[in-house]
C-alpha cells in the first residue's frame, strides 16, 4: 500500500506540474495522505535524519540557513516549500525525494512546521532535532491564543526521548516553560547583547506575565516584543543560560530577528557535528528565502521584499527599513485571504507611528488598503497613495525610487506572492 500510494501521488504530482496546475507543494502530499494517513510514519522509519523548525516567525529563514550550512558541508538536504508547513507539505517534500519504490535519497530532511500542526506531526514521528523559534500572536482566527499553543506544545513535546535535541529561544519565556520539564535534551540560544535593547517596551508584547504563575515578569531589557532578558520574581522561572549567543555567530542578513535565526541554525549545525569555522564560512553564502529580505533588481533599482504578517514581524520590518542605510520609498500591502488571516485587526498593534521620521514616500495597497490607509492616518503619517491595484502601486513605487535607492515592500503572505508574481511577470525575478 505504501508503494502504491507513492506511485499514485507521484504520478499526480507529475500531472499537476506538467499541466501547470500548481507548484505541487501540498497536493501530492494530500493525495498520499488520503490513501495512506500514516505515510509520514512510513517515511520516517527509513532512518533518515529529520529536523523540524516551529514557531511564529523565522521558520522559513531558519530552515534555509540550516540547509545552506548542511549543503555547504556536503550533505544532501531536502526541505518543504515555504509555507507548505502542514502535514501535506511535509509528505509532498518526502514524495519529491522518494524514488518510485518509496526509498528516500537525501541525508537530511528539514521541515518548517505550522504551530498548530506540530503536535500532530510529533504523533507520527520523532525528529532528531526540533527548533522552537518564538511564539507571538499571529492570526488569532486560526491559531487561537499564544497560551493555548504553548500548552499544546508542552503536552506534545513531553513524549520526546533524551535522544532528541530541542533547540529553543531562551529570550522567549513561553518556550522556556515548554522546555522546562522535557525528557529530551534542551539547549538554548539567546542574543545576550544589551546594545540591541529597545529604549522602551513595544505595545505588541504577548508574554509580559509569567506563563507559569501569572505574575508580572521583570525585564532587564527587550530586543523586540517580549523577547529579552526576563525573569519572574515570584515563581522563579528564569532566563536559562544560553549555549549560543550573538557574539558566536554573526548574521548574514539585516534585522535583529535574523540574528535569532542565525543562532538557531548554527546550533543545529553544531548538533549535526559541523565545526564553527565551517558554519561561519557557509553562512557567508546565505541568500534570503523569497520574500524574507529578498533583494532583487528592477530597472536598475534595488527592490527589497520583507514579509510582514503579524505585529511583531511588521514592527521588526519597519525597524529594519528605518535603520537601514538604504533609503527609498515604502509600499505596505495588506491582504486578508486565508493564508494572511481574515482578521486585519493586528495592524493597530504595529507601531506605524515610528514612520513619522521616515522621509520618503509611503504607499499602501492590497485587499484591505483602506484599513492600512486609516491606520496611517491615525498614526499621523502621510500616505502618498492608496492603490486598489497592486500593479499600479508597484509601478508608482518604482517611479518614486531614484536609481541609487531601495524600494521597500512590506507585504502580508498572499500579498508577497502577488508582489513576486507581478515582478516575475515583468521578468524581473
Amino acid at each position, binding site marked *: 500500500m505504501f508503494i502504491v500510494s507513492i506511485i499514485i501521488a507521484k504520478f499526480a504530482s507529475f500531472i499537476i506540474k506538467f499541466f501547470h496546475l500548481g507548484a505541487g507543494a501540498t497536493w501530492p502530499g494530500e493525495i498520499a495522505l488520503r490513501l495512506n494517513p500514516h505515510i509520514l510514519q512510513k517515511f520516517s522509519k527509513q532512518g533518515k535524519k529529520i529536523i523540524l523548525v516551529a514557531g511564529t516567525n523565522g521558520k522559513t529563514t531558519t530552515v534555509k540557513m540550516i540547509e545552506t550550512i548542511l549543503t555547504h558541508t556536503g550533505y544532501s538536504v531536502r526541505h518543504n516549500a515555504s509555507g507548505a508547513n502542514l502535514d501535506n507539505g511535509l509528505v509532498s517534500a518526502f514524495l519529491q525525494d522518494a524514488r518510485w519504490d518509496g526509498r528516500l535519497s537525501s541525508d537530511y530532511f528539514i521541515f518548517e512546521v505550522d504551530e498548530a500542526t506540530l503536535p500532530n506531526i510529533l504523533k507520527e514521528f520523532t525528529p532528531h532535532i526540533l527548533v522552537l523559534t518564538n511564539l507571538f500572536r499571529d492570526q488569532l482566527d486560526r491559531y487561537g*491564543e499564544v497560551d493555548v499553543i504553548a500548552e499544546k506544545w508542552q503536552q506534545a513535546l513531553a513524549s520526546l526521548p533524551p535522544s532528541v535535541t530541542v533547540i529553543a529561544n531562551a529570550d522567549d519565556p513561553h518556550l522556556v516553560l515548554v522546555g522546562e520539564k522535557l525528557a529530551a535534551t534542551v539547549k538554548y540560544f539567546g542574543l545576550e547583547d544589551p546594545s540591541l535593547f529597545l529604549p522602551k517596551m513595544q505595545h505588541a508584547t504577548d508574554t509580559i506575565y509569567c506563563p507559569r504563575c501569572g505574575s508580572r515578569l521583570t525585564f532587564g531589557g527587550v530586543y523586540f516584543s517580549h523577547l529579552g532578558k526576563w525573569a519572574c520574581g515570584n515563581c522563579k522561572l528564569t532566563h536559562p543560560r544560553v549555549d549560543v549567543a550573538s557574539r558566536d555567530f554573526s548574521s548574514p542578513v539585516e534585522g535583529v530577528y535574523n540574528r535569532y535565526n542565525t543562532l538557531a541554525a548554527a546550533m543545529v549545525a553544531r548538533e549535526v557535528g559541523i565545526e564553527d569555522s565551517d558554519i561561519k564560512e557557509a553562512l557567508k553564502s546565505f541568500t534570503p528565502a523569497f520574500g524574507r529580505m529578498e533583494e532583487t533588481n528592477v530597472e536598475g533599482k534595488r527592490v527589497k521584499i520583507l514579509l510582514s504578517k503579524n505585529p511583531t514581524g511588521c514592527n521588526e520590518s519597519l525597524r529594519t527599513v528605518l535603520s537601514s542605510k538604504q533609503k527609498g520609498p515604502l509600499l505596505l500591502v495588506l491582504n486578508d485571504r486565508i493564508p494572511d488571516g481574515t482578521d486585519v485587526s493586528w495592524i493597530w*498593534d504595529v507601531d506605524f507611528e515610528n514612520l513619522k521620521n521616515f522621509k520618503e514616500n509611503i504607499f499602501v495597497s492590497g485587499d484591505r488598503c483602506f484599513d492600512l490607509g486609516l491606520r496611517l492616518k491615525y498614526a499621523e503619517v502621510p500616505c502618498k497613495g492608496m492603490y486598489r491595484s497592486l500593479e499600479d502601486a508597484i509601478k508608482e513605487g518604482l517611479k518614486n525610487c531614484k536609481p541609487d535607492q531601495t524600494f521597500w515592500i512590506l507585504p502580508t503572505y498572499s500579498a508577497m506572492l502577488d508582489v513576486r508574481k507581478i515582478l516575475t511577470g515583468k521578468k524581473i525575478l
Partner: protein
Amino acid sequence: MKHQLTIGWLYPELMSTYGDRGNIIVLTKRCKWRNINVSVLSIDFKTTKKEIESCDLVFGGGSQDRQQGIVIDDLRNNKGPVLKELFDRGIPGLFVCGAPQLLGHYYMTGDDTKLTGLGIFDMVSRHFGKSKPRCIGNTIGEIGEEFEVEGLDFRNTVVGFENHGGRTYLGKGVQPFAKIIKGCGNNGEDVTEGSVYKNCIACYSHGPFLPKNPHIADWLIAKALELKYKKKIPLKLLDDTLEWEAHEFMLER
C-alpha cells in the same frame, strides 16, 4: 473654553488581545483634531477608586483566558462597583470582544464552570463546548438613530470582526446594540449584536472597532462631553472620507 476628557482604559497590558488599542488611538485623535484635551488613564491593579471616578469615558478590550483570569478578581472586588456607579451616572463606555462576557451576570464555560461577572449588564453568556462552532468573520449590524450626533455624518450601520466561542443572551435591563445583518452577533439566534446599558456599549466585535465606525466614536465623545459639561457641546465635523470609504468597502464585501 478648551474642553478636556479623561479616558479610562481597563488593563491595557492584559486586556488588549488584538488591536484593541485602535479604539483608544481613534478616540484620542478625534478629540485632538477638535482641540479637545485628552488624557488616557490606564486602569490596572494599582489604580484607586478616586482615579477611576475621574474618567469621562471608559474602554475595555478583549483578553486571553489566562489574562481574564488574572483581572477578574480585581475587577469584581475592587473596580466593579465604582464602574457601575459611573455607568449608572451615564458615563459612556465601550467594551469589545470578550469584555461583554465579563460585564454580564455570569459566563458558563464549555465544561459547565460558572464564572460570575460584574453584573452591570443584564445578560448571561454561555459556551456550548464543541456543540456550537466559534463565530469568526466580518460582521455588519444595523443601529438606530439614537446614535446620531447633531451636525455630524451618520450611517445606520456598524462594521466589525467577531471571533468568539461563547453566546450571549440579553435580559430586559439592556437593549441590543445592533441588529445583526451579517455574522453571528450575540448568539446567532435572535439577530441581536451587543448590548447597551445607559450610555455604555458592549459588543462582540473585537479589536479596533472605532476606526471604521467614526460615528460611534463621536457618539461616545459627545456623550462624555455632555455629561461632563452638563450641556451639549457641538462637535466639529471632521473629514471622514477615508473612514467611510473603509466602512462602505466592508458593507459591499
